[in-house]
């Protein structure tokens, strides 16, 4: 039961993150409405937190050591990517972040 809850929670959060970041880059961050952009950005930050927590929680249910390591990597990925990213290559790292979120969702669907 817990596995099902965590799994679907992670899938929902991972998918939502990918969508939020994509829409943000394409539309929202270009808006002049500071309050909307503030709240939207805060949602992404909150999403990253929940994503990390749920990914790390799923480590328990990963079938083998490699899968556990992969889940750990996915959980830490927002912070790894964030620390590696630079302003000049922001778009590249944004794409990497989106791909990582989608890849983690696919991984959890198939392997956990």
């Amino acid at each position: 039961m817990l596995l099902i809850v965590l799994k679907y929670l992670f899938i929902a959060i991972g998918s939502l993150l990918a969508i939020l970041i994509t829409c943000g880059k394409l539309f929202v961050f270009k808006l002049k409405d500071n309050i909307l952009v503030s709240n939207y950005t805060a949602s992404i930050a909150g999403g990253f937190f929940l994503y990390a927590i749920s990914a790390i929680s799923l480590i328990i249910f990963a079938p083998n050591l490699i899968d556990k390591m992969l889940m750990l990597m996915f959980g830490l990925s927002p912070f790894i990517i964030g620390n590696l990213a630079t302003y000049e290559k922001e778009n590249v790292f944004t794409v990497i972040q989106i791909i990582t979120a989608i890849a983690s969702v696919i991984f959890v669907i198939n392997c956990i």
Partner: protein
Amino acid sequence: MTLDFELINEKSECRKAVLLFHGLTGSPFELKKYGQFLYKNGYDVYADCLPGHGDKVEEIYTVKYTDWLEFAYKRFEDLNKKYDEVFVSGLCLGAVLALAVAIKYKDEVKGIVSLSTTLFLDGWRLPWFSFLMPIALSTMVRFYYNYPECEPHGIKNLKVRNVIKRLLQQGNVGMNDFPMTSIFEMLKLSKFVRKNIQEVTQPILIIHSQEDDLTSTKSAKLVNSKISSTDKEMIILKDSYHMVLYDNEKEFVYEKALSFLDNHSEIESEGEARAACC
């Protein structure tokens, strides 16, 4: 257009100077009245735009805290060669830089005046989601958002606040928002200073506002408690916000800073002569 200023006594050789550092996304403009006051009372004063804050505003997104440190160190070294006594002072990020210079140049910095020291961003003005800041700053989110300059602009006095708002809109005195990348760098600088704060041994005056909207008195209290200086004074203002150099108690701040500098300088001031020619 450069906002740097140097107030140098051309008529006689002044042997003491004050190096000023401005705040994050600010400019030497916010130090001008303070600098002029110190200059009129016998000090040569220097204030420069920090890296990322000059004409090329886009550099704020790529500047690193080490750039600020290197700049501050170099500036101090240049002045230390020319003057017998060099004091350092700063506001906000500038105060943290002043402490960093004091940490590195233990025997050479004559004294520190630290105003609205920003070691933490925990003021009452910060938005509801500021608890997410550690996550935002360490992920891609820091590239997506600029925290806008907003009410009360660090100033309690309404009249002054309206003037500053107008100047900000004209783009002459500072930026209209705080890129999160620069906040990230400022907090890294803060971490560096906090780690080494016990190395500060010079006389220090710490001034902070009880109602500071950007950073609470926690920053000032931490500096006061952790430094190794035996000669230290902390003043908590009751009627100002973050920009203490322009707010309701600015004259008090100027006088206190001057008194501190005079008490720790072994060189007599030429204050009366400068007041006459200014």
